[in-house]
């Protein structure tokens, strides 16, 4: 840059580094502490950030193994963390796949087809999405209780019901995919139709293969969104073996049974994969963040 720098420049750079490092310490301290605590023996251990004595007891418990303590008492894992992780991954995978399928077809209609009230429907969907489900928990609970009376597989306390509950949140994904579809020239599909392809074939065989990147992005976004979802899961699921990670983790820090060390190991074990997925998807998530404000 062609700006002449003054003699204060060096002090300013040093000051900026000091500020940034101080903030980094504050930011990273909780994350470093939880790793350290997961390696300390006992559930109430205070100590330095680098543990003096490394113990794998919490990690064994988190992985579902029994631990025999020094005085010969066998400690069983307090909670089925791996089961919770599996529940979370299962629900998030199925829900995201369905969300991608539903939003792709809807986005196709909005991008390519002509029908009455097109923009009002799309705007209405986007507007509805501004009301988070947490505001309607009472109704959602009552709805799934009723559904469960007639279709038990989709009632309370089922993963099927939870997956179905997540299928309402598609508006932003429809918007994202529609935007991508509109960047693909419509002529390619028209050529396919001239060659005898039906509407659906042109969509499935011609448009979709070109849209794979955005579909992966939406899948990852939906996956991250559902795996960290807490309010709806917390009212639909109550039984211990049924919980998802987001609902179950809090039981480690209950007032009556405070398992700080065990929680730390479980948190690192389950939080790390999700964090890595999030970091890998960071670019797209960030562009999704700004999408709401700067439309088109």
């Amino acid at each position, binding site marked *: 840059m062609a700006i002449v*720098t003054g003699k204060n420049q060096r002090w300013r750079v040093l000051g900026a580094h000091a500020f940034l490092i101080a903030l980094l310490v504050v930011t990273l301290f909780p994350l470093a502490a939880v790793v350290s605590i997961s390696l300390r023996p006992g559930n*109430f251990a205070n100590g330095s950030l680098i543990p003096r004595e490394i113990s794998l007891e919490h990690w064994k418990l988190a992985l579902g193994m029994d631990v025999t303590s020094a005085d010969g008492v066998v400690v069983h894992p307090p909670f089925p963390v791996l089961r919770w992780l599996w529940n979370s991954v299962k629900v998030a995978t199925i829900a995201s796949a369905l969300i991608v399928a539903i939003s792709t077809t809807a986005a196709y209609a909005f991008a390519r087809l002509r029908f009455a009230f097109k923009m009002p*429907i799309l705007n209405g969907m986007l507007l509805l999405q501004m009301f988070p489900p947490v*505001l309607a928990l009472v109704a959602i609970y009552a709805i799934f209780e009723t559904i469960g009376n007639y279709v038990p597989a989709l009632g309370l306390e089922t993963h099927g019901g939870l997956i179905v509950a997540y299928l309402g949140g598609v508006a932003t994904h429809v918007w994202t995919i529609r935007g991508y579809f509109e960047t693909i020239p419509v002529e390619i599909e028209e050529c396919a139709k001239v060659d005898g392809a039906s509407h659906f074939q042109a969509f499935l065989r011609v448009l979709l293969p070109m849209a794979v990147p955005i579909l992966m992005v939406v899948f990852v976004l939906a996956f991250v969104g559902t795996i960290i979802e807490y309010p709806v899961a917390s009212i639909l699921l109550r039984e211990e073996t049924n919980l998802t990670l987001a609902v179950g983790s809090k039981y480690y820090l209950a007032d009556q049974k405070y398992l700080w060390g065990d929680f730390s190991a479980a948190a690192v074990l389950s939080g790390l994969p999700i964090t890595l997925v999030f970091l890998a998807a*960071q670019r797209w998530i960030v562009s999704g963040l*700004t999408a709401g404000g700067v439309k088109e």
Partner: protein
Amino acid sequence: MTAMNPFDWKRAAGAAVAALVALGGLWLAFAVYAAGQPLLALGALALIGAGLYVYVSRAALAWRYLFPGVMGMLLFVLFPLVYTMWIGFTNYSSTHLLSQARVKAYLLEQTVPDEEHSLEFTLHPEGKELRLVLAPYEAASGAQRFISPPLRLKGDKSETAAMTALPADAALAPALATREVLAHRDALMALKLAMPDQRVLGYAGVHEFGPSAAVWRANADGSLTRLDDQKTYVPNEAEGFYIAADGDRLQPGYKVAVGLANYARMLADQEFRGPFISIFVWTVVFAALSVALSLAIGCTLAVLLNWEALRFRTLYRTLLFLPYAVPGFISILVFKGLFNQNFGEINGILNAVFGIKPAWFADPLLARTMMVVVNTWLGYPYFLVLCTGLLKAIPVDLYEASAIAGAKPLTNFFKITAPLIVKPLSPLIISAFAYNFNNFVLVSLLTNGRPDFLNTKIPAGTTDILVSYTYRIAFLDSGQNFGLAAAISTVIFFLVALLSFANLRVAARNARK
């Protein structure tokens, strides 16, 4: 193979699927109707009918693609909103859980054993199964006895056994002792005995089966009369109870519309209004503080990290982004542990340096401070990312010009940077405010609203925000008052709608300029 056109097969398969869906839908709707929910059955029928029409008719091509998405939104986003508003006008709660029809049916099904006509029973093993024998109490040897077919008597599935007369001279295995009979208690309680004279007997005690008598009689005017004391209870539509002349209310109550009673309570009920207003104020303060602090830190960092004289910028940016990448439910719980008064690391450090151990979870002010601190930690990376993007769009020559004029960095920020990013940021700031206004996950996992206000009729927490307060009223320690919770939710809907409206207005104004 010209005779078999593959297209026809496809059509046939399609028709078969449509027929199956139609049959399944009809069956489901009928089941719902049979369970006494005609409106719900109609809704299910309409939904399935619409689906069939869309996929069978050629006219609705676009809707074939739209149907699942739009239905998902209608069923699981719009309907819950409307339904919540409706619940807000009812007294739906744990004491008014069922509809009046269901409550009436429940009461009419209540029975008491008729002890005068009870018979003594004994169980006699036969192979792996048991036979149940009924005899009058202290029967003379000649009295008529009855015997059941061999029964398994396992589990608690309800079952009816046909009793037959037992010849007086029939040989039976010795009867089971009381202790062994008790082992079959669950199965016996679910067992009904159909007597040859059409009476049905039920379990009436450790040794007896007997006919049962209804407790209630339904009167023509809709009231219910208790048979043993002839006391009559009249349904009261305003209160959702069957009420006797002396004012006695019959449990359980039933669901009725109560108009604006829940809203009146928010405004008029002194004991409720106090905590409600403090929670409302705290919700606004919390959301505003969270956004302001996150915005200040995030934008300062973005400006710093945009400064080319600084090294390691990418590393800083990646590490500073981490709080956003860690799932919220984990980082919030980590903070809950770190702030623990006795075992937490934060008090460990404070104790070592200053010799203090603040009670983060017991003192209202400290708990609120902690909430804002944690939420700022969670929220600043969002603004860091947003501001970084917006800074890139500012032309560099503006800063070159200001450098020629001899401006200092702070002047640059307030005269050039801030005015240029404020406008595109404003709709995002509003949506961040709306998000934190409803930041249920943070409250629920960090403090759960505690510490509570003292002396409130309905438990309310000093760190509760509106949405966690409704959750508490509906699902936790306050008697599951769904109606009141839904009314508060409706108030929040309107606030969110206002914020969304402001958001759209600001975004539209930006787009025009």
